[in-house]
């Protein structure tokens, strides 16, 4: 049986994620009280857009928001899956006060 290759457009996913982050964080400074809401909003926006494509994938979206204190952060991932149908992408975004890293993984069913 031919396995269809991953049919999600990486460019479109990156645009979606960047728009979600920009709309949520924009020029904000880091505020403890708002971080949970920001994370939820970014991920919900991304997942909604991915679900609308109605393709046969399971999705995992992770979001990390960190104060921009001049330290670096290493985000690494390893996967055990079918590389013909499954893939991921990571988007990092920062302003003077906030560092945001969003990873989107999609896995064929």
């Amino acid at each position, binding site marked *: *049986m031919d*396995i269809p290759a991953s049919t999600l457009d990486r460019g479109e996913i990156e645009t979606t994620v960047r728009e979600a982050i920009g709309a949520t964080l924009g020029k904000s400074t*880091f505020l*403890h009280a708002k*971080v*949970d809401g920001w*994370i*939820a909003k970014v*991920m*919900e926006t*991304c*997942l909604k857009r*991915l*679900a609308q494509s109605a393709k046969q994938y*399971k*999705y*995992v*979206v*992770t*979001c*990390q*928001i*960190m*104060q*921009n*204190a*001049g*330290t*670096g*952060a*290493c*985000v*690494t*991932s*390893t*996967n*055990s*899956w*079918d*590389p*013909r149908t*499954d893939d*991921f992408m990571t988007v990092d975004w920062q302003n003077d006060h906030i560092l945001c*890293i969003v*990873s989107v*993984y999609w*896995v064929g*069913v």
Partner: protein
Amino acid sequence: MTFEDEFGDGEDEVHYENTFITSPEGYGENQRFRCADVKTVIEEVLHDRLDNHEYDPRKASTTSKEICSFVLERVKGLGYKRYKLIVEVTLSEKKGQAVRVGSHCLWNPSTDNYSSAFLETADMFCCCSVFGLYYE
């Protein structure tokens, strides 16, 4: 799923196709993703690799890749035959900054699950999450 080794010469690729067995129990006992067992594995790897170590920015990316691969191999060793696994590790130096990590998933909640653990030392912190997605 394929089992091609990322770092060295690959084993022969093995491609699994759908069997349409809708529940992991269809493959035998102990085939469902168990969060507690996976969390134990993650904690052991983090403690082994990071306890009594100082943060070195030149080696941080290598360290996080090592943690990823150790966790993946140990979780594969738990014997989940039909799960696709995603391991994500975040490693950073502590400078008093606040950090928040979250995840949202669109999956089958009756078969798929995740586990995560967090380790903090004097000068760094590490967060590791493992997501297990059932492949019918």
